């Protein structure tokens, strides 16, 4: 498959007054293929969110380049939709209006009927028909995040960037949302980058797991290929040798090679 999203020698420094710059991430080289699902995992402070923000264009790298389809990323754009950790729905709009606002802006050429159809399609994709006229304040955390996912997918992005999308949810809700995401991915086949600190989530969802070393000067430590057939079944996988191998590889990376002792 051709080169789709590529990061070359990416480094991010934050200036600290009176001291040397803080180097959050350095020397990151990564090629991501189309329709690939990638997890980036690491301890807190490893710069994984910084990395995602640079791909999103919300933050600029200090060195190196990030290219999507051979074009340098110079700022945020709807072809790289972001699902934020805290859902970031606008609280004065209903679920429907939150999605509608995004679609309207990115696809101004749609007629009102097409617009309506598109918004409805993505609401039903996350099974939220019953909550479409509710404000985010009336929804549970998991439902809010599902609206967030629907909003991100509704604008037909080339890459879906998810910044610890399920991190703020309880583990049962999180499992539920992972199922939603896998089911949607079966039909949509997006390129997805997920930032996570959950080992099971990383193995369950991804084709490759990028493991980050600890910051400062964090970089890619190891890349793990997850050779599991899709659709994947959470319960069956628990005894699958490949699943166990992947899990142990990440465990060993995070808790032996790059254990964080000050936490």
């Amino acid at each position, binding site marked *: 498959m051709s080169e789709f999203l590529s990061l070359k020698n990416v480094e991010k420094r934050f200036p600290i007054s009176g001291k040397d710059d803080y180097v959050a991430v350095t020397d990151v080289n990564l090629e991501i293929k189309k329709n690939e699902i990638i997890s980036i995992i690491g301890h807190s402070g490893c710069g994984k969110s910084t990395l995602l923000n640079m791909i999103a264009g919300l933050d600029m790298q200090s060195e190196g380049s990030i290219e999507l389809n051979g074009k340098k990323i110079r*700022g*945020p754009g709807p072809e790289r939709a972001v699902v934020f950790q805290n859902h*970031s729905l*606008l609280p004065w709009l209903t679920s429907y209006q939150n999605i509608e606002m*995004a679609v309207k*802006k990115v696809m101004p050429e749609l007629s009102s009927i097409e617009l309506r159809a598109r918004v409805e399609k993505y609401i039903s994709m996350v099974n939220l028909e019953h909550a479409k006229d509710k*404000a985010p304040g009336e929804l549970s955390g998991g439902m809010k995040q599902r609206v967030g996912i629907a909003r991100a997918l509704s604008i037909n992005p080339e890459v879906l960037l998810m910044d610890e999308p399920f991190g703020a949810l309880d583990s049962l809700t999180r499992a539920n949302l992972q199922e939603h995401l896998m089911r949607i991915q079966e039909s949509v086949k997006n390129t997805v980058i997920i930032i996570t600190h959950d080992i099971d989530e990383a193995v369950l969802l991804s084709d490759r797991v990028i493991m980050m070393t600890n910051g400062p000067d964090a970089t890619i430590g190891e890349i793990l290929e997850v050779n599991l057939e899709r659709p994947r079944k959470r319960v069956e996988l628990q005894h699958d040798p490949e699943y166990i191998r992947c899990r142990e590889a990440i465990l060993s990376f995070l808790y032996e090679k790059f254990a964080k002792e000050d936490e």
Partner: protein
Amino acid sequence: MNIDLVKRIVLPLLVLIVIIQVWSGIAHTVEDFPTPSDTYVAAFGGINEFDDEVVGVLSDPFYIENVDDKGIFWQIMESLKRVFGGFALALIIGVPLGLLIGMSKNAQYAFDPFIQIFKPVSPLAWLPLLLFIFQDINLTAISTIFITSIWPIIINTALGVKSVSEDYMNVAKVLQFTPMEKVVQIILPVAIPFIFTGMRLSLAIAWLVIVAAEMLTGGIGIGFWIWDEYNNLAYHNIIIGIIIVGLVGFLLDTIMGLIANYFDYTKKGRA
């Protein structure tokens, strides 16, 4: 019967009785101080302490004798007109300025020192200067109210803009909103409850200030009316004036509060 409702009616009545007792006490000690019953007669008409039949101030609030002698309703209307004139002007200038200060660090640096210095100045200190400029009672009163109202509006609008969460702005960035779309779709919805809080504060202070301003400017208006009644030795009317100013102020604040709640998305079960 709802016990809370009973308390809400009975307890203020008890306090009212105490107030009237204290008032009567003062009236007996201070010479010529109007008693509660004198004041009642002065307000609603009847037989006063000299056995004269009098028409109450509130029995005919709508009379117009001549330009300088009008019923209390017209006095209040005149004051309200000035308050809303100055208030509207403060809104037109204060909200855009507050948006600018909230959105731009440079604008904040530029304007902040002046806001901090002029905000604590009593608007009445400006009054002689404004009177000298305009040579007109109405314009002076309106511009005094303008200066009174503008500070809370600017400050609260700017605060509202600053309380827009970074997350919402990131959504706007990913969707590539234009600056205008950011203002209309993200910043204003967040800032509007703050703007209305500012408006409510402004209106309350404006109503405080107009009474004093009109005492200084003279002419017509509830403030001057109260002062005029002092000069007429009609002390009972001062007390009536105080109560009316209080009631109108309470009404203004209540209406403003209702409007503010209507526009506040957090008060509609959408936190």
